[in-house]
């Protein structure tokens, strides 16, 4: 079963074609990577799924309902690329607010994102990587069925990146669908499935292994180049 089903999605912003007739699906309980260079339309696609971006044409079903449906707001966790949390609150206070908006307990989400020891520090005083994890914790605390994460691992050291991917994996094992955007091709290998975007078009939708095999590439960067340049396998 698919958590997200998109067909013929076209988005124009300010006269510019940002997404040009995209078809894709995201299987439930998977970790799916949305990859592509910056400006390829990743953020716009996530904003369509969360219901923040209007679209011209196409059909977008999220958890079996049209994108932006009122009832979906309780079931989706979303982080924006620039962490949208309050700098003048502590990590715990930010998370508590989102917990209250979902009627859920705060629980251990701050420990889950590796901020257990920083819970009472003001976000203003935190590093960029810590702030983005506070933002992630705010998305997790509502116990969503679908997580839409816009570049959550930017600026993190390799140890933290590995830990976060382990967390995404654990969430998916518990039935949560995780859609993660990234412009770092290395991260692709950690996903069950990949969606490759370029200039508003979907150029590939497959598992990492299949992508490597079908392009005959040695790594993800290479696979991307081969897809773009049409190099035969």
């Amino acid at each position, binding site marked *: 079963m698919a958590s997200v089903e998109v067909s013929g999605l076209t988005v124009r912003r300010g006269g510019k074609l940002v997404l040009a007739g995209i078809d894709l699906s995201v299987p439930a309980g998977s970790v799916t990577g949305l990859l592509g260079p910056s400006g390829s339309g990743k953020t716009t696609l996530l904003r369509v799924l969360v219901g923040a971006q209007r679209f011209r044409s196409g059909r977008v079903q999220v958890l079996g309902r049209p994108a932006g449906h009122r009832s979906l707001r*309780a079931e989706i966790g979303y*982080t924006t690329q620039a962490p949208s949390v*309050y700098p003048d609150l502590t990590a715990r206070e930010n998370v508590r607010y989102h917990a209250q908006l*979902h009627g859920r307990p705060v629980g251990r989400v701050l420990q889950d994102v590796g901020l257990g020891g920083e819970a009472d520090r003001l976000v203003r005083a935190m590093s960029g990587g810590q702030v983005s994890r506070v933002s992630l914790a705010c998305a997790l605390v509502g116990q969503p069925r679908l997580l839409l994460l816009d570049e959550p691992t930017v600026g993190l050291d390799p140890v933290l990146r590995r830990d976060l991917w382990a967390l995404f994996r654990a969430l998916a094992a518990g039935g949560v669908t995780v859609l993660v955007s990234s412009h770092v091709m290395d991260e692709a290998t950690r996903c069950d499935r990949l969606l490759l975007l370029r200039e508003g078009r979907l150029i590939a939708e497959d598992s990492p292994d299949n992508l490597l095999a079908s392009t005959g590439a040695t790594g993800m960067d290479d696979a991307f180049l081969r897809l773009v340049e049409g190099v035969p396998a």
Partner: protein
Amino acid sequence: MNAAFVAATTSRVLTQLRRDRRTIALVLVVPCLLLWLFHEVFADQPLVFQATAPAMLGVFPFVTMFLVTSVIMVRERTSGTLERLLTTPLGKADLVLGYALAFGLLAGVQALVAAGVALGLLGLDQPASVPVLLLLTVGNAVLGAALGLGLSALARTEFQAVQFMPAVVLPQFLLCGLLVPTDRMATWLDWLSRVLPLRYAVEGMDRLTGAAAVTGLVWRDLIVVLGCALVALLLGATTLRRTTA
């Protein structure tokens, strides 16, 4: 409308305000200093202070809350926190009401302090009812907050938001009857002032101080102020957009 969401928002905003000690100090101390300064400047004309101080008590919360709210809302809009909040179950009315309650509370404290100084230390004539005076003050504050909320939609930066203050506040300040009594203005100015809510805020304050009883006209002024605040809040809520084109 969800009471738990409203309460969560109010408590979040109050926590943010509490962190900003300097703003709190300015909000509470500046009105008192201005009242005192006014008192001293007109030391040999005590009637001027008696005539003007009530109006000043009406104008302060309006101006302060307009500024604080418009800057905070521009911050919410530009930092992405607003867009994010609107993807959660939080309703627009919950958010707006949560803000209004937090600022109303701050304004209540401001009114208590300023009225305390004016009545207790500077010898302003006792009002017919202190609770009604405070209620009117909080109404003014919520009105200022609501206008700030709505106009923040027109500002892209905090700097622009601050520039709206003179544009929105000064005309009302000139026309509200504080500088020249409204019945001595040209007829068209008098009519113009009748559609601006600050006039009723100032009029209500005037009718309360030095009076023996709370008259029906005071209640009318209070209802006009609260009604305008409610309308401005509703209009403010419509400027919050869940989706962008």
